[in-house]
């Protein structure tokens, strides 16, 4: 009993439901394990991020302002 530590220091703390963040997670995808099993392919797909240029967005905003 001399070496005994309080429970909180040696046990895994309980996580309340509201503390589990799933906002950005597709739970179905997660259940199928796609992200964990194919992480190499998914990471590679993530290397390509087509984005519109700022000029294009400015032109679009201008068009919208003219739109009645």
């Amino acid at each position: 009993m001399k070496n005994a530590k309080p429970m909180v220091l040696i046990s895994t703390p309980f996580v309340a439901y509201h503390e589990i963040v799933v906002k950005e997670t597709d739970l179905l995808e997660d259940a199928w394990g796609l992200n964990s099993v194919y992480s190499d392919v998914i990471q590679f797909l993530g290397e390509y991020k087509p984005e519109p240029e700022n000029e294009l967005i400015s032109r679009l905003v201008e068009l919208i302002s003219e739109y009645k």
Partner: protein
Amino acid sequence: MNKTSSDYELIQQFVRGEQSCFEEIIRRHKNKVFAYISFYIRDQALVEDIFQDTFLKVIQSVKSGKYYDNGKFLSWVMRIAHNLIIDHFRRIKQMNTTSNDDYESDIFNSKKFSDANIEDTLIKRQIQKDVRTLIGRLPDDQKEVVILRHYAGLSFKEIAEITNVSINTALGRMRYALINMRKIMEEKQITLTIN
């Protein structure tokens, strides 16, 4: 305007005359819509035209009261983009001309090329080409799921609704797509070049 407002709240405010609300909508979804179109159309100028037309069509529909909120604004926008892409291919078919969609733009003419580091640009170009090759070699149903999930950012529930299949079918297609892409990566010895 609040940055945490829902898409529908922003749309309502836009209809009431607050233009900045639609700008926020564009800011939120621009990358996803642009990426979706870029995977089907290679000609950059055409991608930009369809991108603009998509948002103008959204405005037209919203202003004429054709949009009813069901919490699926982005799916609806993607459907509009998809229809515009289909219209483009239909027009090409009718005109019976050769599409320049297979044309890879010359990187040396790119304005970005002179500004950015040349090596980085070349590596990025190579990755872009490899990713396009990977996805391009997939059957159409698998390709669609990959683009909608990883570039348009839709959930599997939304993908299932857009593609008219069950959620399990959409997930199954994704699994086959990932298996196929891994196989192609191994065959072509494609690896990550940027960390």
